[in-house]
């Protein structure tokens, strides 16, 4: 929400140096007070604009995180396509997730294009621009990643259509039995700032892919951002030092086999594993 400009146009004031009657300002002695008022208003305006831009960036950042969450859940769903866990519930959840991602993508791309196309009156500082560019690069990366998952989904659905009963016979027995209820619940919890505002019908998979490709090329044409100027905010290996929410088992620990039946056949590979017959 921007503060509306005062009727006395400041630029004109700058050029001609003529006093205009401002709200509640009297022609006090000398130019000094007037100029100070002008400077103050200009300052306040730029601060407001900057604040607005900052708010938009924060909003975009949050939307970025939401999009990341949605796309990772989408990946978990797509990984089960064609396997024994594939069912109509999975595909419905996939469509829902896709729809959500579609909404977030559209809104995010519009906002970022607006932020970066430089149509603002007050030019952004270097730092501001950097933040926006970083968000831009992040968005493009997420979109590319999501696009590749979408393509895989389309090919897999084409290869394993679940229209007939006998189609289930050709599903690959991967060991996944459960559906993805937890993942679906996670998706449902995602909050997007503008979710309620823009409602458009969700395209089907093929059109979604086509639309996303068009959006990517369109975005890259409209805003010239140099990828290489964006640098990472965190050093390498930073995520390894981060604290986990809860201590987690590694795959090696989880794959420990029950000792009883497998002891004779499995050779224990490394001592750090526990005394039971180990796998992996």
């Amino acid at each position, binding site marked *: 929400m921007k503060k509306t400009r005062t009727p006395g146009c400041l630029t004109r004031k700058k050029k001609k140096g003529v006093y205009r009657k401002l709200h509640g300002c009297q022609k006090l002695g000398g130019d000094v007070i007037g100029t100070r008022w002008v400077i103050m208003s200009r300052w306040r305006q730029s601060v407001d604009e900057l604040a607005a831009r900052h708010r938009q960036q924060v909003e975009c950042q949050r939307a970025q995180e939401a999009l990341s969450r949605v796309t990772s859940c989408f990946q978990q769903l797509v990984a089960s396509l064609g396997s024994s866990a594939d069912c109509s519930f999975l595909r419905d959840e996939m469509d829902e997730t896709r729809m959500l991602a579609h909404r977030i993508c559209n809104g995010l791309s519009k906002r970022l294009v607006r932020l970066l196309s430089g149509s603002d009156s007050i030019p952004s500082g270097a730092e501001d621009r950097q933040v926006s560019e970083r968000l831009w690069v992040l968005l493009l990366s997420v979109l*590319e990643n999501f696009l590749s998952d979408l*393509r895989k989904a389309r090919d897999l659905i084409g290869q394993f259509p679940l229209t007939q009963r006998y189609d289930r016979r050709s599903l690959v027995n991967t060991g996944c039995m459960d559906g993805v209820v937890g993942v679906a619940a996670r998706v449902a919890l995602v909050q997007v700032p503008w979710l309620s505002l823009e409602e458009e019908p969700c395209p089907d998979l093929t059109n979604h892919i086509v639309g996303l490709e068009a959006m990517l090329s369109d975005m890259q044409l409209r805003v010239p951002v140099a990828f290489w100027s964006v640098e990472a905010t965190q050093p390498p290996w930073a995520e390894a030092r981060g604290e986990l929410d809860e201590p987690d088992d590694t795959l090696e620990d989880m794959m420990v086999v*029950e000792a009883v039946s497998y002891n004779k056949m499995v050779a224990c590979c490394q001592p750090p594993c526990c005394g039971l017959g180990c796998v992996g």
Partner: protein
Amino acid sequence: MTIRNTLRDHGQRYRPRIACLKKAEKVLLEMQDPKTGVKSQPQRLVITTIPHAITGEDILSWLADRFQIDTQEARNFGSMLVALGYIYPLQDHKRLVIKPDASLYRFQTPYFWPTQQWPVEDTDYAIYLAKRNIRKKGILELHEQEQYNRLHKWMNHKWDFIVMQAKEQYRAAKERKKPDRVVFDCQERAYWVVHRPPPGTVSAMDYGLDRRIDPNADEEKTPDFYGRIMIFTQQSIMRPRVKSSVSIGALVKYCATYNGHDPFLSKCLPSNPWITDDITYWNLNMPNVEIPTKMRVERWTFSFGELLSDPRGRDDFRLFLKKEFSGENLAFWEGCEDLKWGTAATMREKAEQIYKSFLARGAPRWINIDGKTMEITVNGLKHPHRYVLDAAQTHIYMLMKKDSFGRYLKSPVFKDTLKKAVCPEEHKYSDAQLEQNAKNRRPSLSPIVLRQQEKEHRAKMAANAPVDITQVMSKLSKTGKEVSPCRRPPPPAKT
């Protein structure tokens, strides 16, 4: 008549990319059938039980049954399926082979299949490494650490995305139930073992260079496309006809002649290095080996082309011609080959050199070609190009083929070589010995070293150039009796 230069052949023949993937997928789907597919059993882990584990021996017996092949072949096929990433081992996950015992495997989910229209992205690998980092608190394998650092440098602009996505994927995976989570983690790990193998392992995904266009894609119907079709059909009409009995007879004769020499169709003595990892076969058949194998010598008798294309055969032939004092023919032919396949910068000098040595009147090694060819050649040499000596070269080739080749096969030189030729015994390796051989594999000589050796050999040959015919004849006439050709001081070295 010329021999295509096989070493530097840049012919853009279509090299099909891994067409076996589609076939492997079909086999995979057949294996899933609940009645006729591979038997599966649950895998009991401490924390849970996961279904759909299959044993190596079950897979192999199914394959042997389905395709009616023996166990060794089934093993090779099974190992190929594992190496391609369609089945992954649950124990010893880094070794992509099938063990014919009760070790467990599982099918890979189609999302992680190595189908080609989904290129394997470095971004995904970076995300995977970041996830492993989070899980294992930075304890990665050495090659993974190197890859991580490299990707951090090259993908620095996306690094925030990569870390964010890694964290989100990690949390999303935690939402699944424990057994599914274990399965997904195994699947992902297996996928990256196939597509980013640790250094020193052979990857089944190596398919060579990418083609510029997809040969199986439909071509656009441009006027150029139709123009090419027209040219092709015109040439087909103009082509000379041969009776099928004649052409088929030629094919039959070729097959019958070469059947014993084909390493796919018949045994390769002593053993095929690609199978047994023993390189005796290559050592015995090096280009400049002293004593060739019997098979190699037999091959020279098939045709003149075979003799010339084998460097050892050519050496033998050169020796024979030297004894007959008609070595200039072969030298001229080799000079023409050199001109045709050499660099454009040296062409002019080479052509001049050849003219001075072989074609000019009173040249030291004058070759005997008919007047008409000589005229054409000399005229052409005024503006030399790569194929200016083609007519003369063909004439000389035919001369050698009709005349010298027959005499060579009856000569003492050849008979001597044939007697000395060695026939190696077949190797019979046991399984343990095969494994030992595989461990002792060493890389071959670097191509730079090989090229240097070749250059030295050629220089040695040039230095020992045979005697001029005119000098020998004059010597003979002077002394009146046979004089063994003595070594004259070598002619000035060729540029």
